[in-house]
């Protein structure tokens, strides 16, 4: 589905990875009901605080 050099979306740069979405737009739109949007979890990167990283 995805690759760096020669993927379906035509990527040619090894630094970059392209991924073609196989779902139809209508399918994605139908998936996101107001309830699912409201319940979606924040995706977050929290690294250990400075003190923790010094102690470990």
């Amino acid at each position: 589905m995805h690759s760096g050099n020669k993927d379906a979306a035509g990527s040619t740069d090894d630094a970059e990875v392209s991924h073609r979405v196989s779902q139809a737009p209508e399918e994605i739109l139908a998936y996101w009901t107001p309830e699912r949007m409201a319940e979606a979890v924040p995706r977050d990167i929290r690294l250990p605080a400075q003190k923790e990283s010094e102690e470990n």
Partner: protein
Amino acid sequence: MTSKKTLAGSLSTGLLLVVSAIGGATASSATSQDATQLQVASTPVSSPQGYWTPERMRAALPGDVLAVKAVARHENQGSSPSAAVATGEPTRIAGTAAQTTVTTALHADENPVPHIGKVFFTLAGINYVCSGNSVAAQNRSLVATAGHCVNEGPGAFATNWVFVPGYNKGLSPYGQWPARSLHAARNWTSGGDIRYDTGFAVVARVGGKTLADRVGASGVEFSQPRGLTYKSYGYPAAAPFTGTTLVSCTGTAKDDTINPQFNSQGISCDMTGGSSGGPWFARGDTNFQNSVNSYGYGTSSTTMFGPFWGSTIMKVYDSAQRK
């Protein structure tokens, strides 16, 4: 030599990703709160001399009764010269009480911006939310966000990826724009290297229009000087925020001194989870984006870090904007 372990080693093969859920904390029960309140007020109070018996305390007159009497005396005796009250040098005597730290919010509430919005997607069966921004592109259909909002880093790409520009209080005034393709640096998709925590999505046309036709698009810039003053935007959703409205932070970018190898810059900011992927604009305008909200330290971070957009991220952008 004291061993000072940094995150460099632990992040070499991937990131420690902490996912916080909205409203995930367990509230205390009413019973335990009531019990705590009942324990407070039952300690008897008495002076060392024993003068203040409970009966004397109950019989004591309110101080304002004495104040009324003092005002009456003043009126009966005539006014004294006001100079005696008003003169004297300004004087300040330091106390010994602990300094009170005034906590200032490190964000500002914003009105919706049409080209900035929320991103919804699914990874490993979990529905997530981030932030994103419509950026200038040859295809006029490109959204910039964080790498961890398009790909596990390292790992799979997201499904059900959709951009909701101008989101405000549950409304989608400019529609919802599903992704046709997702793009990230190989360093992110294969190694989870946080230096490349940026992703792009090419979205489908909606109602025959491109995203840029509908909401406009910010310019982008790369390899800019470090230490610029930035304004970042996002939809923080983890407590104390609710994710329903747009928020911003403003500050001068400083290097990440905890993990300088990340090459990231941070600005003063208390936005929480959900703001990831929100755009950074230098020089106080929204004309040119050159980073995204990426990571913070600890559970109550006051600095938001963003990746330095250099030549690799420019290559990812350039490839995506032509799709």
